């Protein structure tokens, strides 16, 4: 059960939220959970056995003795987290606008309009 399996499980939970719920706010929250699972997957890929975090307190870097995990996917996922925030905010603004016009949050009732 490596972290890659756990990231796939969290993706499945988010996917259940998107396809099986009828409330629109729950669907948008499922999208946010899927974003979080992708961030976990990318950070888990860069793991090396018995590695430390890439922050060198008082050590010097010896390319054979010190084993550091890969710092590049962690730096790229900062951008991915900000994209996830912006996407959730815009989707929720759309949901608020739809509720103001049709007075319902149920997707099955909106199909018949």
């Amino acid at each position: 059960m490596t972290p890659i399996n756990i990231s796939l499980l969290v993706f499945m939970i988010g996917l259940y939220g998107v396809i099986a719920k009828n409330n629109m706010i729950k669907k948008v929250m499922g999208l946010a959970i899927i974003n979080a699972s992708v961030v976990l997957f990318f950070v888990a890929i860069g793991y090396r056995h018995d590695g430390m975090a890439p922050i060198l307190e008082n050590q010097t870097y010896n390319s054979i003795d010190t084993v550091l995990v890969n710092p590049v996917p962690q730096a790229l996922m900062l951008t991915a987290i900000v994209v996830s925030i912006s996407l959730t905010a815009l989707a929720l603004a759309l949901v608020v606008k739809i509720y103001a016009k049709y007075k319902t949050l149920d997707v099955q009732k909106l199909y018949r309009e």
Partner: protein
Amino acid sequence: MDNSKIIKTIAQKLFPLILLFGFYLTLHGHLSPGGGFQGGVVIATAIILLALSHGIDETENRFKEKHLNNIEKLAILAFIFLGMLGIFNNYPFLKDIFPLGQRGFLASAGMMIPLNLVISIKVAAGITGIFYILVKYRGEI
């Protein structure tokens, strides 16, 4: 909404501590995990805590929306100005021109501290602005 006296008092006492923690995360971005984005979100959380416990109208009187929007745009322009400092000295855009210093000290790492401060101010103002617009909507189509 009229909350109880306990919640209002506790939120008022906690606000400077959360703000201090956000500034700590921002300033020590080159020595420990943290940086601009993380510190900015913590500062926005402090203002949102005040807005949830005291009501949105009173909080808007202290942190006006017009000032927050202006601060955000000025922070982006300050980022671009820090990049142009390199062009004025015959270097490429966004080159590090401040002195590097010793490793492990607070005053080190060149242009990282000004960049972290600018990013944290921008993120805090942006997320608080989004919160204000989402809360003050009153059902117009």
